[in-house]
């Protein structure tokens, strides 16, 4: 199990979470845990593992879930483009802190960037 992190839509994710998110983004419709478990590439993961991965992604605000009958089905929190824009704003918010290492044209004039509420993505 490789635990290398990689970027999906600008978010730096552990490899398995990245796999799951890519799967959901490519899927035409929301998926249940069992469906994700079926579709995941590589060795078959336990139901609880997949469920944990989805919950972690939900904590990051990248996926959402709805009821279908009495099971949950999961879908990405936005299109790939929206998720990327969201990641961009997260990075830019970090950039405004006192020792952001960014050389800006306006650096000596202190142009500040207004903070956005965390979940307005487009």
């Amino acid at each position, binding site marked *: 199990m490789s635990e290398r992190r990689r*970027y*999906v*839509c*600008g978010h*730096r994710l552990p490899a398995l979470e990245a*796999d799951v*998110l*890519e*799967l959901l*983004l*490519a*899927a035409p419709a929301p998926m249940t845990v069992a469906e994700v478990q079926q*579709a995941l*590439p590589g060795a078959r993961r336990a139901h609880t593992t997949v469920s944990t991965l989805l919950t972690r992604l939900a904590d990051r605000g990248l996926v959402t879930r709805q009821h279908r009958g009495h099971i949950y089905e999961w879908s990405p929190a936005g*299109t*790939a*483009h929206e*998720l*990327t*824009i969201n*990641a*961009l*704003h997260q*990075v*830019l918010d*970090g*950039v405004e802190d006192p*020792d952001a*290492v*960014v*050389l*800006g*044209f*306006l*650096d*000596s*004039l*202190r*142009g*500040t*960037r*207004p903070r956005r509420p965390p979940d307005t*993505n*487009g």
Partner: protein
Amino acid sequence: MDAGEIAILALAAALAVLPPLVDRWALRHGASPQALIALASVTLAGSAAVPVAFVICASGQAAHEGATSAPGVAAVAGLLLVAIAAGRTLARVITIRRRWKALSHIAATLQPPAEYGGVQILPVAEPLAFAAGGDAYVSQGLLERLSPQEQLVVIAHEREHAQRRHGRLLALARALTHGSFDLPAVRHASTAIARELDTLADRAAAHRVGDPHTIRTALQTLAAHTAPTPTAQDETGLRHRLERLDARTTTAGRIVEDAVRLATLAIGAGTLAVICLSIHTRTIWLGAAACALLLASLYTFTRPTLTRRRPSRTTPQTPRRIPAETRTFAHPQTSAVPDARPAGLRTCAPRSRRRVS
């Protein structure tokens, strides 16, 4: 107190007092940015070397006198402090690098509609222009607010930062500032580096566009947008920055320049002497190796910024002047609401798409 400790204390005192004084004086009398960056870089290297030299010195004595003696306690405390500072510095460097990487990934994912004069355009409504690592970024909101000529200046400024790897030097300076718990001498040096890098980029931009006046109007336009009521501090900041646009080469300027270089040399020599003195009790080779390491890292970090620009052979894909047909930025479909794009545009996750189909 042996010679090593006295030398360390003297260097620490000199580092705390001399560079800020020289910097302030030289700035008033028009020294070149390159000289001031070199001074600040050597100051930073010295500030990093002093505590390390102290720990080596103290632990050398502690080895003779035992761990419970005064030098032993000093050595342990110093070692802890150096370890904490180094950890903080390293952590900050990693954070910064991650941020740069995230930005370049995002830019690659968003697939900007066009390479616009060698910068990436971010679909953000606020006026932003910055260089992070080796990439320059400009926001859509900025381009909408500026005239084509002003856009050229801003882009040239950011590209200069990106191409000369200014970010690398500044990142190290800022990380050291964070690591040293905002020590005044270190903070002053890193502010000086940031300021002088801006001056270098301003000059390059003015040179490329051929009209220093455009920088003034671009700065004023942007300042009016970001801070509608400019404070007195903003005004003086703007004036100082514009004053430094043209490189003066008067006789007085040359004397100032030489003085700054002399101070840099003195601090550098003092740092190397302290390293050698603190280590000489063990072996001279260790001292020489430490000095070589310090010089090599200084060279690596300041070379891209301070060497003369070679002819454009090194960057063939980026013309010195941006072609006329790309100068006006027209991007109608995203001009009003920059974040809006056709929904369901799945630009990322190409791997999984390949796997499913």
